[in-house]
């Protein structure tokens, strides 16, 4: 038993650190530091992707022949970890970390040849069309129809909660091609060119004022059958592969550690109820210590999943547990950051942040006046947006159902 990194891993880590020190401009670091959600400023994140691509590190998990890195899972973890600790803006996962893997696994030579290089360069930017107004937690009940007509599938229906649909020029989505049999059958995994006629994108304004999520309306949109991934009616297999296949590259513990550090710095500079630094208030210090302890423990659990996967094993429901713990910890931290920001935590000033999308009727003062400091402008928006953590990617209630069934046999 051993929790330390090997000498090779440490050498690799230092190489990554050197790269980040050199390439992360102050503006890029700001884009990472002043995020108000898990989504980085789109332009900054694409700029960072280009820099990584230049170094050959844009898609570490891909097979080398497609432009990936010959890294171990541990190295990939270290790369992500160091990127987070250095405050690099995260890349959009939809293309590189998601659809690309199904194209690699199920795609035709033509699909691979067309999409993979363009995803790497950012020329093609994907969004994910899974949820529908009537199909949230119950994804398999989705009803957007795709009717075969010659070489095309004609798509009609609606998708919702589509991140960056505005910025994306392609969508990968699940459509209903067959209504017979179990609801998981008759689903097809389809790539849609967002410039096709008949697609309307409506931005959804969130409580933070941000417009990152969207609803799309598809009215007789013609999509070539050549854009089907895998077989028609067999999309659930493809989607499940995407959900279950552990390919590393996620590092939640470092993100939580960065947040805890930010809170500690913030609380040391703000007054508590008794006028002394908030960090010295026993109540606040106790809550922060409790969160830090949970993060220490979370990191061990994350390491364990990593080493299980690295050994070719299947972490099983441990990933559901990490999803629950990670999102609930993150929400706790946003509460502490909001508390630390004091009365100014109530002030709405997105202009001092780097949101992941446009902001509705934002009121940036002419003189760019900022009440307090940038982190105080981030605090309430981060708090509001982070409520999504326990809702999306399988709500935490769904995750608990999964663990009850798979881990406890209930």
């Amino acid at each position, binding site marked *: 038993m051993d929790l330390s990194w090997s000498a090779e891993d440490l050498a690799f880590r230092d190489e990554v650190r050197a790269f980040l020190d050199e390439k992360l401009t102050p503006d890029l670091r700001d884009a990472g530091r002043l995020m108000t959600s898990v989504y980085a400023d789109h332009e900054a994140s694409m700029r960072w992707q280009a820099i990584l691509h230049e170094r050959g590190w844009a898609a570490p998990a891909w097979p080398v022949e497609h432009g990936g890195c010959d890294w171990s899972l541990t190295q990939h973890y270290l790369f992500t970890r160091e990127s987070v600790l250095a405050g690099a803006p995260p890349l959009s996962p939809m293309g590189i970390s998601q659809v690309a893997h199904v194209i690699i696994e199920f795609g035709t030579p033509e699909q691979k040849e067309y999409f993979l290089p363009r995803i790497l360069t950012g020329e093609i930017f994907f969004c994910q069309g899974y949820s529908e107004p009537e199909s949230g937690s119950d994804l398999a009940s989705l009803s957007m129809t795709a009717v075969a007509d010659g070489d095309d599938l004609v798509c009609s229906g609606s998708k919702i909660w589509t991140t960056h649909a505005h910025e994306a020029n392609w969508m990968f989505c699940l459509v209903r091609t067959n209504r017979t049999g179990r609801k998981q059958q008759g689903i097809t995994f389809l790539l849609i060119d967002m410039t096709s006629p008949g697609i309307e994108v409506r931005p959804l304004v969130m409580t933070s004022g941000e417009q990152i999520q969207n609803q799309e309306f598809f009215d007789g949109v013609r999509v070539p059958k050549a854009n089907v991934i895998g077989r028609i009616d067999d999309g659930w297999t493809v989607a499940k592969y995407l959900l279950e296949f552990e390919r590393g590259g996620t590092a939640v513990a470092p993100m939580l550690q960065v947040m805890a550090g930010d809170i500690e710095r913030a609380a040391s500079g703000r007054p508590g*109820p008794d006028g002394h630094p908030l960090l010295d208030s026993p109540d606040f210090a106790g809550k922060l210590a409790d969160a830090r302890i949970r993060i220490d423990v979370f990191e061990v659990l994350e390491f364990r999943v990593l080493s299980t996967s690295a050994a070719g094993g299947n972490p099983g429901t441990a990933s559901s547990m990490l999803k629950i713990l990670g999102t609930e910890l993150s929400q706790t931290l946003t509460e502490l950051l909001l508390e630390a920001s004091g009365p100014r935590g109530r002030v709405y000033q997105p202009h001092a942040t780097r949101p992941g999308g446009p902001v509705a009727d934002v009121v940036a003062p002419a003189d760019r006046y900022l009440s307090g400091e940038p982190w105080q402008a981030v605090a309430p928006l981060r708090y509001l947006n982070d409520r999504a953590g326990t809702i999306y990617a399988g709500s935490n209630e769904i995750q608990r159902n999964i663990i009850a069934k798979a881990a406890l046999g209930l």
Partner: protein
Amino acid sequence: MDFQLNAEQVLLRDSLAGFLADRYDLARSREAATSAEGWQPGVWRAFAEDLGVLGVALPADAGGSGGGPVEVSVVAEELGRALVIEPFVDTVVLGGGVLRRAEAIDLLTGIGAGTVRIAPALLEPGSAHTAHDVAVTAHVDDGGWKLTGEKTVVTGVRFATHLLLSARTAGEQRDHDGISLFLVPFDAASPPDGLRVHGYRTIDDRHAADLVLDGLRVPGDGLLGVRDRGWDLLGPALDETVAAICAEAVGCLRRILADTVAYAKERRQFGQPIGSFQVLQHRMVDMHIEVEQAAAAALLATLRLEDGPCERARAVAAAKVTVSRAARFVGQNAVQLHGGMGMSQELAVGHYFKRLTAIEYEWGASDQHRSRYTGLSRATGVTPAE
């Protein structure tokens, strides 16, 4: 032992509720909030003239109906239920509470008539949520005063007719003694010399501002009450303010819980209403229990406001702890049960969640009031009105 509103109180509640149901549309009120004006003056006029809610707690000689804490809480709860952004608590409860104790009958009359609107400039960049933490200074300056320093998150500035300013005229930064209160006529369109105003919106759709006081001159009669004894006016008024905000929160909580239960009955997943899942049922039961506790705590604070300072402060602290806890638990879970829709501006729940989040911290969150409660319980020198 009586938990019933009397006939007048029921009438007050029903007439206000009826008015808000007819006239206070959530969407329109949000538009007003983001507009240049920042509020709906017509609503305020109706409060004053048609409904008389602005004078509800004013003495008869100020044209008020002489109501007390119960009447204020009845109004505040209805305003919370309709998510009203117009400054009832700032002007009527906080401003009115201070002016009542300063016996400023004319201004009180103006409050009741809707012509006097007060923006409380109490918090400072270095004060957290603690109103007696005052660094702004006031110095005597030929017959008047000269104020220097910064105030932050001053709500209602956009449409206020007066600023209520706290400044230090003696003592150390956090002393309760040595604070003086000033009332300064104000017009956002032309701020006086020596005062810079940086306006912004709050997450709960209020208009607020930072004030930079750079030797702002205030005439001698701008002083409220006795020099250095401002806390005698402000302390009790702040307890009344917190109690009113707790009542407002109860209105928000009842509405957001009702919306959540209704949504859970109608929203279907896996072939059944999500409200049929036992885990969500028990979550809503726990929300319900939190709301009932918040209501009981707000009532306790309301009915103790006219008791002795310790009893009053203890009940107010207990209420704020309870309401802050409920605001977080019920607000967060209302969003959770609404899923993505709960995070959007498309439904009411998101707007109520933001107001409840602001209320959680307004005038101090749970920890602050829990410590205050402990201090009062042990009667160890904590100023009752802290």
